[in-house]
């Protein structure tokens, strides 16, 4: 694994000097009539590393999937770099990288072929070199030409992280990035978080191990039953709901 991980630079200054990377307004999503996210209004500053915390079912993954444009909001809006996720999803996708619980890899392709395909889809410049570099960065250079079908869950996770390095996302969304990783893999995630912070990339991640994140995050949001319970630290703030006026019904009641 090289000393420094290559990340496309996005830095324009400290995170509090730029327009916010993410702004949500009463963002809600229902599944089968039940709110997984019940009206979240947040601001995440550009360049900040923010953890989404909370128990299972709190809405952390739903919030990430909404911002990644995997799912559409049932209610409310969100903007990524000023772009509306509902109205301009293709432009949002060009700015967002998302690591979900699944890795989205093709079992019959090798690690290198998987990344080469991703590089084509992301229009990565100097793709061949960047793929090789990404494989080195995530510690898979020695298995580059092996089919993914034989990879462990941790190796697949590393390769999916390598895919994020091929793009030039200004917002990286990581759902449980430490899951399935060994100690070296967890150290790799720590290194990546540092590299993204140094490059000015905004990171929003979920984790059930907040103690691991203590030195790498600027702030955190605690979600509970689909709403913001608390924000801590820097780089993130809860915004007033547009519906929190006497004549209107609060969003969380609307979607409940």
């Amino acid at each position: 694994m090289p000393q420094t991980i290559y990340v496309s630079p996005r830095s324009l200054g400290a995170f509090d000097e730029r327009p916010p990377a993410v702004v949500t307004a009463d963002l809600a999503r229902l599944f089968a009539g039940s709110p997984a996210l019940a009206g979240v209004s947040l601001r995440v500053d550009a360049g900040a590393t923010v953890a989404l915390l909370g128990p299972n079912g709190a809405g952390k993954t739903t919030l990430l999937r909404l911002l990644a444009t995997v799912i559409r909001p049932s209610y409310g809006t969100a903007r990524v770099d000023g772009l509306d996720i509902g109205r301009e999803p293709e432009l949002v996708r060009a700015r967002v990288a998302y690591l979900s619980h699944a890795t989205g890899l093709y079992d019959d392709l090798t690690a290198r072929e998987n990344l080469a395909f991703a590089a084509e889809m992301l229009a990565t410049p100097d793709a061949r070199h960047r793929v090789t570099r990404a494989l080195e960065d995530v510690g898979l250079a020695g298995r580059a030409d092996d089919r993914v079908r034989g990879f462990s869950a941790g190796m697949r996770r590393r390769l999916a992280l390598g895919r994020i390095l091929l793009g030039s996302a200004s917002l990286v969304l990581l759902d449980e990035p430490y899951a399935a990783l060994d100690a070296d893999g967890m150290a790799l995630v720590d290194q990546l978080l540092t590299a993204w912070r140094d490059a000015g990339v905004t990171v929003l991640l979920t984790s059930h191990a907040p103690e691991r994140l203590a030195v790498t995050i600027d702030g955190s949001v605690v979600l509970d039953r689909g709403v913001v319970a608390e924000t801590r630290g820097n780089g993130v703030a809860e915004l007033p709901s547009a519906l929190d006026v006497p004549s209107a019904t609060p969003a969380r009641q609307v979607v409940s």
Partner: protein
Amino acid sequence: MALAIARKDALAELRGRHATVSTLFFAAIVLLLFGFALGPDSARLAAAAPGLLWLAIVFAGILAVSRLHLLETDDEALEQLALYPVARRAIYAGKALGGLAVMLVLGLLVLGAVGVLFAVDIGGALLPLLLTVILGAIGIAAVGTFYAGVTVRLRAREVMLPLLMLPVLAPLLLGAVKATTAALTGDPFGELASWLQLLVAFDVIMVAAGAATYGYLLED
């Protein structure tokens, strides 16, 4: 981008042979079983050949496009594909091109098999037959890619895909069988061009409809 997706599908298919091997066996079994059912009468077999050719291609084609889409269920690969900043119609075009490649291989091999098994003179009408197979393959790939996208997340996809596809493919099946019959009989009524036009119209409509609507299938 469409070519990158089609290339990726071709590479995965060459490695895994998920679509070609199973569909070729299936097409061969369909032809053999119908051949046995019709008996040894060569005139009867030759008369039934156009219909059997297209039944084998359509049934095997449904299987092929379904298998190609199953690649995208590897660890939620379809979701990842939808996350790339590319136009949805490019994703449709890529998947349809991959399906078309398999359909063309399948169509040509089944055409050859029909010629051998049912004693049909393919060489005498090779050009119109090839044109019919190409137009039919485009239509099946266009419709199949769309409906494979509809059913890929369903548990009962193997049942639902033919149920959804076959009614839509009825005009293609009719036009392709009629065009094949006309080509094999020397086109005595001058109807070959009309049936080929029907196939072209079907392909244009289905490709346009698929490209316009496939993106909605990728969203939740």
